[in-house]
């Protein structure tokens, strides 16, 4: 591609890389019982919650960091991290937006997430999490009128202990694996959603996670419960400042869908990916799991993964209820030195359960992009069905793409269909588009967006356009 693309395209800077100059209050570095007690105290938690955290911490002492991911990870010194950081004097969550520090409002405004209700996106309620605390939640009262609970998890622990107690750790047990257990011990904030029986949530619910403080890990915890016959669509977005250090984000997200309920969970992950030489960036080690507990329930994961130095996540579905459905739609883009090892697990336990996996991996630069998935049919999963499609697109010749689909089948009436393709953006396609007046970057972004279309159109409308732009920006500088 000598002639076409010899121009040096200047790479657009990571747009969200700024730091908010705000005084923060951190608890001392390190991981020990005192730190956990302090976090629990800061959150004003009841004893049962603290006990739960401490039991997780006990487990953690005998666990080690998993090493099997197809990623080169610098060793993390867990004693050299801050586990809790909040804006100074943030004793209690402000009751109204008028009480929120203007600097914080400005931050979210800059990120494109205005929190003032007259300015917010119509039809989208937002919970804004800044480092370890939720700073504002919009449309809370309006949702409350129909019985929908949408609040920070720290608030839910105090106001709705019966729900939290019942469901927290019911999908991701405290014993799960190192990072999930670490999260159970030190989690700070995240969102809590409860949709009552028969209610179709009339708004998109969303949480915007922002890391601001340095040397600080973010340990979000989100719990979403859809009661019988209810429906909710939830979206999360994430960004962080540009820094030379690697920062850890280890989240746990649990979803529970009861009989005839449906949860649609979308992620637009745009954590700072590091610079073009691979310095800095977020380590995004996340555990996301949904339980289709009731019959005819449905959980659908859609993820657009463009950021982070390392992404390591497998949003999964446990299909326990008969006739339940699990879906996973993913676009993972890696550029420069980014590494992504992502995919899903579909665990079929109930009869007539169905799952569908569509994964689109795009690798550019010197990056590495792996799809890793497991489809498992248990003995009782009669007539279970899975369809898996994994497509990889390579941009340039120095990147890597891997597909590791595993299956376990103990049911003799089930079926698995698997398709996988690997392609390169062809010079012919680029030339064709350029002959019609698109420059090299526009041509590439058109082709890549076409490649991801099936997944992008699963996003809520309000975010699909943004996601398309993000896909193009993530690949900037990779032509030629």
């Amino acid at each position, binding site marked *: 591609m000598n002639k*076409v693309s010899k121009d040096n395209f200047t790479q657009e800077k990571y747009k969200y890389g700024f730091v908010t100059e705000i005084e923060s209050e951190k608890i001392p570095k390190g991981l020990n019982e005192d730190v956990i007690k302090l976090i629990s105290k800061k959150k004003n938690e009841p004893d049962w919650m603290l006990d739960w955290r401490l039991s997780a911490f006990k487990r953690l002492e005998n666990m080690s960091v998993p090493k099997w991911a197809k990623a080169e990870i610098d060793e993390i010194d867990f004693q050299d991290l801050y586990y809790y950081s909040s804006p100074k004097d943030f004793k209690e969550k402000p009751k109204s937006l008028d009480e929120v520090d203007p600097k914080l409002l400005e931050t979210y405004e800059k990120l494109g997430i205005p929190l003032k209700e007259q300015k917010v996106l119509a039809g989208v309620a937002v919970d804004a999490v800044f480092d370890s605390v939720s700073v504002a939640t919009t449309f809370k009262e309006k949702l409350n009128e129909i019985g929908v609970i949408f609040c920070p998890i720290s608030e839910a622990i105090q106001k709705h202990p019966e729900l939290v107690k019942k469901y927290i750790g019911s999908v991701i047990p405290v014993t799960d694996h190192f990072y999930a257990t670490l999260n159970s011990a030190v989690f700070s904030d995240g969102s809590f959603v409860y949709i009552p029986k028969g209610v179709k949530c009339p708004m998109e619910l969303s949480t915007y996670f922002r890391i601001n403080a340095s040397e600080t890990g973010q340990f979000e915890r989100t719990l979403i419960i859809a009661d019988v016959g209810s429906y909710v669509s939830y979206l999360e977005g994430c960004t962080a400042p540009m820094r030379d250090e690697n920062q850890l984000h280890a989240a746990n997200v649990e979803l529970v869908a009861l009989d005839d309920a449906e949860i649609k969970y979308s992620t637009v992950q745009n954590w700072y990916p590091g610079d073009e030489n691979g310095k800095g960036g977020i380590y995004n080690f996340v555990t996301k799991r949904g339980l289709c507990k009731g019959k005819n329930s449905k959980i659908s994961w859609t993820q657009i993964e463009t950021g982070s130095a390392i992404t390591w996540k497998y949003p999964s579905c446990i299909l326990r209820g008969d006739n339940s459905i699990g879906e996973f739609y993913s676009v993972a883009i890696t550029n420069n030195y980014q590494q992504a090892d992502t995919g899903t697990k579909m665990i079929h336990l109930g009869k007539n359960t169905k799952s569908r996996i569509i994964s689109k991996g795009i690798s550019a630069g010197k990056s590495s992009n792996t799809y890793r998935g497991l489809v498992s049919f248990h003995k009782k999963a009669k007539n279970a069905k899975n369809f898996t499609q994994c497509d990889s697109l390579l941009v340039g010749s120095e990147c890597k793409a891997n597909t590791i689909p595993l299956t376990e089948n103990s049911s003799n009436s089930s079926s698995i269909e698997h398709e996988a393709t690997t392609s390169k953006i062809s010079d012919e396609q680029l030339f064709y588009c350029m002959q019609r*007046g698109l420059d090299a970057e526009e041509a590439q972004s058109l082709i890549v967006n*076409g490649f991801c279309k099936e997944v992008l159109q699963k996003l809520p409308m309000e975010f699909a356009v943004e996601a398309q732009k993000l896909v193009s920006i993530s690949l900037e500088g990779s032509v030629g």
Partner: protein
Amino acid sequence: MLEIKNLNVSVEEKQILKNLNLNIGKGEVHAIMGPNGSGKSTIAHTLAGKPNYNVDSGEVNLNGEDLLSKDPYERSLNGLFLAFQYPIELPGVTNASYLKQIVNAHRKSRKETPIDAGEFLKILKEKSKLLDIPMDMHSRFVNAGFSGGEKKKNEVLQMDLLNPSLIIMDETDSGLDVDALKTTADAINKLRNDERSFIIITHYLRLLEYIEPDYVHVFQNGSVIDTGDKTLASRIDQEGYS
């Protein structure tokens, strides 16, 4: 408007065009005929700036400006349109959004605002009708699963939308049945005017019976061996190239 002077072009170290000279005036239609491997498609690709078509020496001016130093997209924005012999498929990209995007790229280069969706739809309907293109073709992915005829018509549609000053057609007639050929030729004839020039590359007389050229050039071994009016095309059709 187009001057080609002593042009030498090689592809993968093999010289294809040898000392080619060609002048095309405003509003003229030139046909290029010649046997396989004579360099017909090479001239089309070279003018459009396809990678790996290396210009060893020579000069090309389009509307008084040096063409060869420009990127392919700049050549398009400057009014050069190449209708592909084998139009390329773009999976996942709907034809309508693709057409709108290329129209907007040209508008942007003229410092115009992006076209309004309603206005675009109106124009698209009008121009599709001329070519007998059903509107549902535009909700399919660009050229993916299109028949040979649909692909060629889609090329002519783009040509019409982008308003080029020089149109190069690389065997646009291949893959068209008689009816489609006639519809396509009619649409192309409507695009003829005093300002717009054409280079029509073809093996066959039949397209030239619908679109009458002002000049016919015969290519052999990478250069023009004969030039005449449209009667030359009929002679070649009867007697062959030798």
